[in-house]
């Protein structure tokens, strides 16, 4: 009798273990890879696409892309936050980061394009200083959000340069009283299911910088945009539709 009870106990314990495994979420944290890609209205941008007049803006200007560097900050998957990350598309630098120790399950993904004012302190990030991503003190200092350089065919069909540089907007009308406006913006990419070795693509549609809500005319706004208060606000507005969630594997 004792033996039978003992055997039953063992069987019950065993079944209980199986049930436990089937019923519960595995909370073991995992690594998550974020992949930053760029495209032009859905056509992927590769290094072979640089320095060539391959794209046409909403306003009809043919452009070539020569340099594209942009900064994302406070990249958050749930409570896990990467403070900032610079992507250099031309040099394929920073196209991936791995965030470690992310709990499995459903959680949100969001980031800030550029630095919010609180984080945009002049000269404090050694790695960004080392790649000359700074903003001059006369414009309030801090860092670029994006440095996007290229060429366009102007109204005379000549090659002309553009420097679509986004920074914190500054109104210099009164040079003794600079007025700043934080033109960084948060991007929410929704709820994502995190499991082991999840890879998440964060897409930038470059065409959107010239499109929505402000149709960008490069013949009018091409360079010296950093000190242009109104241009900075317009670029910020256009940026809000630039990023989207890509493939999740």
């Amino acid at each position, binding site marked *: 009798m004792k033996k039978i009870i003992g055997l039953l106990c063992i069987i019950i314990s065993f079944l209980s273990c199986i049930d436990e495994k089937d019923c519960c979420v595995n909370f073991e944290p995992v690594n998550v890879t974020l992949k930053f890609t760029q495209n032009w209205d859905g056509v992927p941008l590769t290094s072979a696409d640089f320095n060539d007049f391959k794209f046409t803006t909403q306003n009809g200007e043919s452009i070539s892309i020569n340099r594209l560097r942009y900064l994302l900050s406070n990249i958050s998957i749930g409570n896990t936050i990467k403070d900032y990350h610079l992507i250099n598309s031309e040099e394929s630098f920073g196209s991936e980061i791995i965030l470690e120790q992310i709990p499995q399950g459903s959680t949100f993904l969001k980031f800030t394009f550029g630095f919010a004012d609180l984080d945009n302190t002049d*000269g404090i990030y*050694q790695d960004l200083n*080392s*790649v000359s991503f700074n903003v001059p003190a*006369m414009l309030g200092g801090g860092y670029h959000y994006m440095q996007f350089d290229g060429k366009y065919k102007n109204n005379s069909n000549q090659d*002309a*340069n553009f*420097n679509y540089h986004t920074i914190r907007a500054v109104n210099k009308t009164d040079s003794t009283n600079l007025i700043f406006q934080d033109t960084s913006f948060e991007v929410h990419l929704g709820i994502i299911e995190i499991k082991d070795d999840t890879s998440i693509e964060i897409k930038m549609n470059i065409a959107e910088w010239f499109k929505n809500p402000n149709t960008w005319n490069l013949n009018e706004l091409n*360079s010296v945009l*950093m000190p242009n208060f109104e241009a900075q606000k317009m670029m910020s507005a256009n940026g809000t539709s630039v990023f989207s969630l890509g493939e999740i594997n």
Partner: protein
Amino acid sequence: MKNTFFFFFFFFLLTNCTSKEEDIYTPIPYNLEIPTLFANKLIAPVIPANNPLTEEGVALGKKLFFDKILSGDETQSCASCHNPQKAFTDNQQFSDGIDGFLGTRNAMPLFNLAWNFDERFAWDGKEFSLENQALEPITNPVEMHANWTIIAEKLRQHSEYPTLFIQAFGTSKIDSTLVTKAIAQFERTLISGNSKFDQYLKGETILTPEEENGFNVFMDEAKGDCFHCHGSNNNPIWSDNKFHNNGLDATFVDIGLGAVTGDPSDNGKFKSPSIRNLAFTAPYMHDGRFATLEEVINHYSEGLQPSSTIDPLMKKVNQGGVDLSTQEKADLKAFLLSLSDFDFINNQNFQK
């Protein structure tokens, strides 16, 4: 008897081992004195794990740098074209080699090389790492025109070098790899970080109104817009160490980076040099075409030449450039000269 024999045998082995200096000498780590501004603003300098700086390695590198034994006929050293008094360049448009032939590029100044984070050296970036860079001029027919096998043999037969190599690298097996490692160690100690402008940034001095205005011209996107390629108060290397076509020519005699990468979109691109120590490094540009700073500034102000690969950061190309006023040009020059580091060119550690 057996015991006595073994005793002597092991004693002999032991003394034989200890007599080899290379087995016991440990070089002393070199304390690289990094300027405060660099330490505060920049990431750590590049020191390869397989070539750490040591007192002995740096001293050996310095001796080699100034030694004419490295040239084919022993008439030139590295310092022949890289003179410490000229911020380690010469004042020639093109330098002549041991056979009297002229090169086709201006000798680059040497300082703050450990902060070239991409490690691409020379005007066209053809050399990856300082060690590799040091290999090339020694055998180049229009430069030192030597043969590494012969140099290594000369150094092995030299009265001092074998010991110095043992002390620096633990071996007397001298070859091009160790020679260039030693030279690279010395070159990494060539730090320039004490110009008047550095002192201004540290609060130790003030600028003249002309220098201050010149700095503003440098930093103003609507004026000089120099900072996008040439650093800033936050990047005291004063170069991005990248490659740009800065509008020198509409068509290219020398295609620069394009010859290295094979990519036509790189044609006409050359490294942006640091703007430190310009007082000592004339003439300017990769081909030394400009004799004075005024000519350089005029180029960016009015002289830009359009081409398919001109950098988009070159503003108003179709108008010739950024069109600075006479006063702005003078002030910009005053600022540039405030980056002259007299302590660097007179540093006794860097002289022969």
